[in-house]
């Protein structure tokens, strides 16, 4: 809701308001959204596909899909950020699956950084919100940390994790569930 649709969106408009504007074909809303998310989505894409040109294609296609489907975004299912990440992540994984055999090897620098002990030490001293997440992730047993990262960052399902790790599907599900539960507790995410 704006006093003037033509005057556009302020940079502090909520993600949901921007999506609503995009759903109505408002180019300014699209521009603000791209500026807000390009670094994060490109960072995720290049972390998965590993090269800039391919990551740009993935990120560009992600923005187009977000724009095309803005009107069907359902806030009950996920936040805008999670939705945008999921679209980008799935596109990046699809690209890699075409180029390589499935399952995609996640041994990229993003994954390595999040799994490394150096990062753990750094996270423990970091008190901002991202630092808290890094520290909470670092506190997980390594098998749970790996399962959560494979699922959240790379979209691996429990059966895919089970195959890659040579463990039963139930074990993979358990690692994901326990890891997520511990993270929720550590981040003190409670009902609002």
């Amino acid at each position, binding site marked *: 809701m704006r006093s003037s649709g033509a005057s556009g969106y302020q940079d502090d408009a909520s993600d949901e*308001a921007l999506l*609503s504007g995009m759903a109505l074909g408002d180019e300014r809303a699209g521009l603000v959204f791209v500026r807000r998310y390009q670094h*994060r989505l490109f960072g995720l894409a290049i*972390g998965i596909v590993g090269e800039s040109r391919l990551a740009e294609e993935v990120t560009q296609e992600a923005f187009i899909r977000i724009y095309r489907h803005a*009107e069907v975004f359902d806030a009950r299912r*996920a936040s805008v950020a999670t939705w945008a990440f999921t679209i980008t992540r799935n596109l990046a994984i699809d690209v890699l699956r075409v180029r390589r055999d499935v399952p995609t090897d996640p041994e990229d620098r993003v994954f390595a950084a999040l799994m490394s002990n150096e990062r753990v030490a750094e996270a423990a001293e970091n008190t901002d919100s991202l630092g808290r*997440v890094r520290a909470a992730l670092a506190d997980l047993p390594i098998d749970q940390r790996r399962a959560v*990262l494979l699922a959240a960052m790379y979209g691996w399902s429990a059966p895919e994790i089970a195959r890659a790790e040579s463990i039963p599907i139930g074990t993979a599900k358990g690692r994901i569930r326990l890891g997520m539960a511990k993270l929720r507790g550590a981040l003190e995410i409670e009902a609002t």
Partner: protein
Amino acid sequence: MSGDFELPSQCAAIDDDLTELALGTLSGHRRSEVLAHVASCQRCRIELDQLATVVESVQQLAPRVQPPLGFETRVVEKLQAIATPRSRRRPRIAVLSAVAAAVVLLAFGLGTLIAPEAGDRQESAPARVVRADFMADGEVLGDLFVSNGSPGWVVVTIHDEGQELRGTVTCNVMLAGGQVQTVGVFQVNGEYGAWSAPLPMAAGEVRSAQLIASNGTVVANAQLDV
């Protein structure tokens, strides 16, 4: 999370699936089943919200990387190419004149979804409209209308009694799950006015709305009778 109490059997049956739904890794058919349950179960909806917050937190750890030079321009050009035909058939968010607002509200009353720009109507299944008074200090300041079309719409009107209101006003809606979400910001200039915006959530989720002045003060409340 099941906690120390026993979950209803339906909730217990999908407890693990909620995690995978939040992660976006649940497969199609099962995903539909779980979503159907979540739609009717507040406990599982809250659970899903919390798990989605965890997922979002983890995803935020992806590094922020500067895209190649010219990336933003290239993306925006592509979006403009999409937006041009779309904007012909769908309205922009708009300030409604009193007449246009009356047209919208009349159309709501007739059960037809209508776009808020003249000559840009789009008929679909009859839309249900609910209305509530915006109250301030016991006086009716204006109206809140919520239509459950696709997308849903919210219309805010300010009556003569609200003409002392001036400046930037934010409209927040409170949802069934307790979340608060901003649906729009508009300027009030001391005259009768009406504003509309598409809802970023299902209309049925909206329980109440607030108008917030730029200094953070709640200037009016509207409680929907749903």
